[in-house]
């Protein structure tokens, strides 16, 4: 036992010295804020309202909250506890648990890298719209004129001015993914600026990140509150709110509602990317991460619900505005065709007058009838949109109709930018922590150089998304880079902590570290419920991919002015397969490699 004790003692001294070198958060508030900033991202603003609308409005909150308690909080606590206990980034933490499992950390790193490549493109677009908000009139509120100035541009007429600005001016989108086109220099400039901002925030590690998050975590809430007040006072906002909150109870029986609630909670918290482990690794060991886990998950979900209220009041305003526009068009058509007195036809007497005209002038009415659109507030409200469509088309359409639209536009895109930057800073930290923890890399390069290199590589790859077909590649990354991989990673994480490291051992570690006993609830969730839930989600996703057969995407057709569905070409499918495989294959490959290495070392 002699030499062993001596080695252990030496390890004790050195480890303490090494521990002094690890940076820490300035105060626990910074840790809380960066978790909030990382978790509260664009998904809360543009995916949750869509899900709420699709799956029964107010009644969607039931599966959402249940999934939060059963899945979100336990998994979040698990990741924070692992990070705080192992005091290393994702690779080091999982290698400590078991050398065969360092593949999990590498998989997290790969997923974070893929996410950071495409996520910053959203910030690029937010920057683009933000810079264009300083004009009067807003560029997406009017169509540009055609060649001889007698009318508006054809594509803009067929679509709408906001869609035109998004598809033509911002993306300059090509008709299909095969036609790559050139790099758009304006988007490339904005992408460079976005990456510079990210570099500025993460280059000093926790020192700079800790200060930035005060801003990125709090500003979105300020803007959301301002928008709530503005939204609720808009004409027609109540229509949207009533529509949203009327619960459609029978949607609770739809399994898709529950699956989507689980998926939303899972991805919204940023589990499995290594970010949470990285943040917690900079904590004091005695930090009460259970409290923080509960607080962060509650804040994340409350923000989603809060932004749902804001979104639906804006929806209601936009739907009412469009409905009234539609009615006015019908009134104008009838007034002009039958030469009625100007101002005679109003929304209230429209139906009676229509019947009167149909009976008095049947031939003329039948001529005009095909052109009369059926205006319906319900159908306007039913147009559920998610993702970039919601943020950059629907919201801008609502903003352009508000008074002082430049102010609202600046506020909104600034909020989008801070939400996106908060998540980017978290993802950047998730990538940098394992790299700076690694002795090989950090002995050659200082922290600033590593961050700079990562940002440079990401920016160069991100130029792919500024090409004309870039938005199609963006959709590929958005849909497939992180989904399956994260489910697998978190499943392996849960099993690793509970069964490989040992739940009892982990429990005693936590007790030693924080001083609090582990509640039975967490143990039950980690050991049984959460893995079963994740396996269920995994099976659902796989069967969904298999059943749909070929994968399809939405392409913009400039001649018709709306999106059309097309099939992915084979090389795009190959890229999708590569994206999923690159992260998931890390786990078995590294385990195999470690096994082979140990086998040869034994020999």
């Amino acid at each position, binding site marked *: 036992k002699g030499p*062993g004790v001596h*080695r*252990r003692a*030496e*390890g*004790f001294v*050195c*480890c*303490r*010295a*090494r*521990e002094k*070198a690890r940076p820490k958060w300035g105060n626990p508030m910074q840790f809380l804020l960066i978790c909030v900033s990382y978790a509260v991202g664009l998904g809360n603003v543009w995916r949750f309202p869509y899900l709420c609308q699709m799956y029964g409005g107010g009644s969607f909150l039931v599966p959402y909250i249940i999934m939060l308690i059963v899945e979100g909080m336990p998994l979040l606590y698990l990741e924070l506890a692992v990070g705080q206990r*192992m*005091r290393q980034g994702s690779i080091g933490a999982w290698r*400590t648990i078991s050398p065969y499992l360092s593949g999990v950390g590498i998989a997290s790193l790969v997923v974070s890298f893929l996410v950071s490549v495409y996520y910053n493109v959203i910030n690029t677009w937010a920057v*683009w719209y933000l*810079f*264009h908000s*300083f*004009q009067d009139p807003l560029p997406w509120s*009017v169509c*540009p*004129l055609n060649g001889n*100035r*007698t*009318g*508006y541009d054809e594509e803009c007429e067929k679509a709408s001015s906001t869609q035109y600005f998004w598809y033509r001016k911002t993306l300059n989108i090509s008709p299909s993914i095969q036609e790559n086109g050139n790099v758009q220099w304006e988007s490339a*400039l*904005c992408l460079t*600026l976005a990456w*510079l*901002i990210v*570099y*500025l925030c993460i*280059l*000093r590690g926790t020192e*700079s990140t800790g200060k930035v998050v005060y801003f990125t975590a709090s500003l979105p809430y300020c803007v959301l509150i301002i928008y709530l007040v503005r939204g609720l006072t808009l004409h027609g906002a109540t229509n949207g709110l009533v529509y949203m909150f009327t619960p459609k109870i029978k949607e609770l029986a739809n399994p898709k509602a529950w699956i989507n609630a689980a998926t939303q909670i899972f991805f919204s918290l940023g589990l499995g990317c290594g970010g949470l482990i990285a943040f917690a690794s900079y904590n004091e*060991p*005695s930090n009460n991460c259970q409290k923080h886990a509960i607080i962060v998950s509650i804040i994340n979900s409350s923000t989603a619900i809060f932004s749902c209220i804001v979104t639906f009041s804006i929806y209601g305003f936009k739907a009412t505005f469009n409905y009234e526009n539609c009615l006015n068009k019908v009134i104008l058509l009838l*007034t*002009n065709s039958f*030469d*009625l*007195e*100007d*101002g005679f036809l109003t929304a209230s007497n429209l139906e009676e007058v229509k019947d009167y005209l149909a009976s008095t002038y049947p031939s003329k009415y039948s001529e005009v009838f095909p052109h009369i659109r059926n205006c319906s507030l319900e159908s306007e409200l039913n147009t559920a949109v998610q993702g970039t469509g919601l943020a950059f088309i629907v919201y801008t359409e609502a903003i352009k109709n508000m008074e002082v639209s430049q102010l609202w536009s600046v506020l909104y895109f600034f909020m989008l930018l801070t939400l996106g930057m908060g998540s980017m800073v978290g993802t950047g930290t998730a990538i940098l922590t394992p790299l700076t923890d690694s*002795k090989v890399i950090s*002995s050659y390069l*200082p*922290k*600033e150089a590593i961050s700079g290199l990562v940002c440079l590589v990401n920016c160069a790859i991100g130029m792919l998304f500024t090409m004309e077909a870039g938005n199609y590649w963006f959709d590929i990354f958005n849909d497939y880079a992180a989904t399956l991989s994260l489910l697998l990673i978190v499943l392996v994480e849960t099993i690793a902590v509970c069964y490989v490291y040992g739940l*009892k051992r982990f429990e*005693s*570690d936590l007790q*030693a*570290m924080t001083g609090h006993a582990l509640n039975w609830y967490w143990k039950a969730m980690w050991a049984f419920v959460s893995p079963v839930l994740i396996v269920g989600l995994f099976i659902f996703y796989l069967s969904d991919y298999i059943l749909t057969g070929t994968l399809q995407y939405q392409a913009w057709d400039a001649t018709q002015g709306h999106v059309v569905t097309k099939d992915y070409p084979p090389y795009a499918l190959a890229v999708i397969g590569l994206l999923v495989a690159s992260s998931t294959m890390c786990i078995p490959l590294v385990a195999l490699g470690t096994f082979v290495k140990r086998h040869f070392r034994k020999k």
Partner: protein
Amino acid sequence: MLWPLFFLVTAIHAELCHPDAENAFKVRLSIRTALGDKAYVWDTNEEYLFRAMVAFSMRKVPSREATEISHVLLCNVTQRVSFWFVVTDPSRNHTLPAVEVQSAIRMNRNRINNAFFLNDRTLEFLRIPSTLAPPMDPSVPIWIIVFGVIFCIVIVATALLVLSGIRHRRRNNKGLPGLDDAEDKCENTITVENGIPCDPLDTKGGHINDGFLTEDERLTPL
């Protein structure tokens, strides 16, 4: 004696100006939409003003300076308010070509609109497209200016942070070389000792030291 002449004149008038006549244009006004409560009633005086404005526009055409108000004929006034008009030549036998009338109205559209407190949308000349106002195009797009400002600020802030980091590290290197060596030695220490990670050894004093206690040893075995 005068009656046949009167009938002749009205007959010719009816011939020249009727809906879908040659060289005739339909005009449509939406006064209530434009002015709301301040809307005026469309009566024969307003029609006179309209005929005067059309005559004024025609007089601006080089070869038609002799156009009079009486050469402009209105017909089929409805309660919409909409009507048709034609412009005749001095002989009152033929109507002026549509192309001339169209270009004359287009040139003076703004004056005509202003005379009635209306705009291109509420005073429509069907078949006469209005020239849309070109959007204001500054020489340097505004977004590039904003971009340039933000870009410079970010570059300066980044440079400051990087430079201060380099200076800080250089000062550290000069001041405490010993600590760095100790840290370098630590990089080679094995982190896992007998399956137990190193870290719990240095938690705060008084906590369980896992290096020397396992669960079984807590209770002395018999």
